[in-house]
């Protein structure tokens, strides 16, 4: 008993106080900043080094919906594409994930995720989500799980994951959507009562990621599922996910 008290006292208070302002360590690869002038070599080489073909040229742009944040382009371009430690990497629309040298993080972090009044009214104080892993590798799943742990404590905002789609206001899916999971993903989506929201988490969910060209995935089911929020990363850090959802809900 005394050991238990000692343990709890030692454990103390672990939660990050201000999720909105929390900073990650410098090594973390987050929002990319592009400065074309920094690299005088052939940009085609930079585009070719990308394992997920996320880099397009003229102008140079990185598609965060494909990017797995491996940092290969940063090395080869001598930092002309530089991954900062900034965590806000989400957007309300697919095009919003394409970052070029014109994008400034301060503006991006405020504007990329649009919040609607009716969403704020419906879900601003309580949002229950059902997670479906549609062939995710367990990376995104572990980070989504971590959102609820003592460090990030997403529950403080009334945002939780439920065990059943019937209890949920929306769906969070991860993974490139394998053929074998496509029917189950659609079932879960249909089981949620309207109005409902859909959040795609991670490069695989948004674009197929490393598996985009596999014959074993079936992304055609996504034609029937309207995605409201795209959260980038491989996997997205819990701070990225929580901030994205808070922005989406219009919570300051």
């Amino acid at each position: 008993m005394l050991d238990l008290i000692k343990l709890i006292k030692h454990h103390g208070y672990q939660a990050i106080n201000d999720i909105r302002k929390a900073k990650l360590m410098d090594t973390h690869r987050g929002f990319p900043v592009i400065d074309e002038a920094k690299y005088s070599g052939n940009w085609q080489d930079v585009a070719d080094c990308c394992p997920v073909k996320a880099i397009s040229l003229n102008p140079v742009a990185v598609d965060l919906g494909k990017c797995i944040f491996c940092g290969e382009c940063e090395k080869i371009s001598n930092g002309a594409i530089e991954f900062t430690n900034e965590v806000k990497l989400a957007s309300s629309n697919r095009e919003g994930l394409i970052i070029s040298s014109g994008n400034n993080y301060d503006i991006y972090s405020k504007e990329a995720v649009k919040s609607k009044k009716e969403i704020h009214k419906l879900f601003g104080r309580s949002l229950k989500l059902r997670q479906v892993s549609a062939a995710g590798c367990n990376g995104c799943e572990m980070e989504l799980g971590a959102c609820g742990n003592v460090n990030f404590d997403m529950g403080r905002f009334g945002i939780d994951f439920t065990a059943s789609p019937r209890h949920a206001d929306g769906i969070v899916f991860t993974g490139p959507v394998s053929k074998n999971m496509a029917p189950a993903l659609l079932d879960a989506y249909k089981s949620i009562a309207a109005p409902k929201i859909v959040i795609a988490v991670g490069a695989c969910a948004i674009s197929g990621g490393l598996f985009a060209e596999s014959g074993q995935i079936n992304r055609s089911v996504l034609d029937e599922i309207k995605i409201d929020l795209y959260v980038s990363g491989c996997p997205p850090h819990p701070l990225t996910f929580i901030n994205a959802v808070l922005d989406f809900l219009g919570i300051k």
Partner: protein
Amino acid sequence: MNWIEIKNLQTVPLSEIPRPGIDEFRNEVIQKVKSGNRLVQFFGNKNSDKIILYAVIADDDVAKLFVSSMEIFPGGAYNSITPDVPSAHLFEREIFEQYGIKPEGHPWLKPVRKGIAGIDKAETQYEYFSMSGDEVHEVGVGPIHAGIIEPGHFRFSCHGEKVYHLEIKLGFQHRGVEDLFVRNNSRIVYLEKLAESIAGDTVIGHAETFAGAMESLAGISVPYQVKIIRAIALELERIAIHLGDLSALSGDIAYLTGNSVFGALRTKVINTTMAVCGNRFGRGLIKIGGVNFSITQELSDKILETLNKLDDETVLAAEVLFSSASVLERFEKTGIVETEVAKEIGMVGPAARASGVAIDIRSDHPSGAYEYFPHHKLTLSTGDVFARAYIRFVEIQQSIKIIKEQLQNLPETAADKTGGGLNRKEIILKPDSLVVSLTEGWRGEIAHVLLTDKSGKIERIKIKDPSFNNWFGLTLAVRNEGISDFPICNKSFDLSYSGYDL
């Protein structure tokens, strides 16, 4: 000679692999396993109009691997080895699914990854076992589970609360990983990243195993400091997952202090990995021929400080967990896998060691930094949830010790972000060769076998996550247990779906 004898990470020309006749090959495999060796891999490769089946068997006592092969036409049949070697059951199902080669007399020749969702009627459909009798019922769970975890289907055949049999149907996660490796065999960077995504909870384990195989095929030897950084990353991964599992096990029995405390400790470990390479799971660290990030003296001191604190905090938390009566009541004598059973079905990793089977690649087939120091295998004997939980605790302590020692051996070198002088375009693999790469991931033995074609391109990769061996262990562990004990049995194994489904 019906076998060629090799070592972990030793490249061998395909022409030197013996090819006995089908019956002889079959007898040889059975003999080898019955005389105490272990079936590591058994898989096919298409060679013009024939299929070559390769078997890799390990003699863990003397750090040797034996490879043999046989050839057969697609759609052919041979007498199954599963009745004699139960650990071959999934390999034979896989070969049947991929090449239509039928192991006659296989007790349950069911699909592994195809035909499981009932989408394509042309595929062999999955049929469950059923149980009949008064008051017998079945409970189906999945593919989508209640928690934030990967999908799979569990079907319990029960009488009242008691589970008579658990059937685990996987394959929902199938992404065609092996096929992607082969189709993109000239895109080295892509392959490195794909290896990291075989199982997202074993990023370092799979990336190291793949890099090791490629380096052996290309004749690249990596510097000592690279080996140390890889070993440190592998041990950090082990500590993080073990802590996470102790947290989840605590959560499953409503011991919330353990759930919170171990969860917070895990965060500190994965943040240490992020301090090294910029990602909490170690993505981007390993590359073929080296590592992308080095550990400076300053970082080394920080890691040491974190680990020293972590060591004390883990002991404190574990002592409370493992001395609490309400915890022990749930853990002890629950989900037992006997030593003989674990051996027979080919279990690996901490789950096998908790059942008294002393297999640990770090000491049995050491590679990298593990070649430079003796690694002591830790085993327990009871094979229950308690043993599978407690072994996590002792392995955490052991891993902390390993990292602390290795940090001291780390030569001081400047950060290398440019690629260590190795241009990936210069990676040329030996043609017509085979290599077996084994690593002790946190879950157990990770085995990649790579075969190259005559132009030195990867022609076949056979990936085995330890989950492939251990899922059947979970099936046997829950037999005769109450169905409510399933969550802790499951979590005590903590197996990968994507690593199995590929």
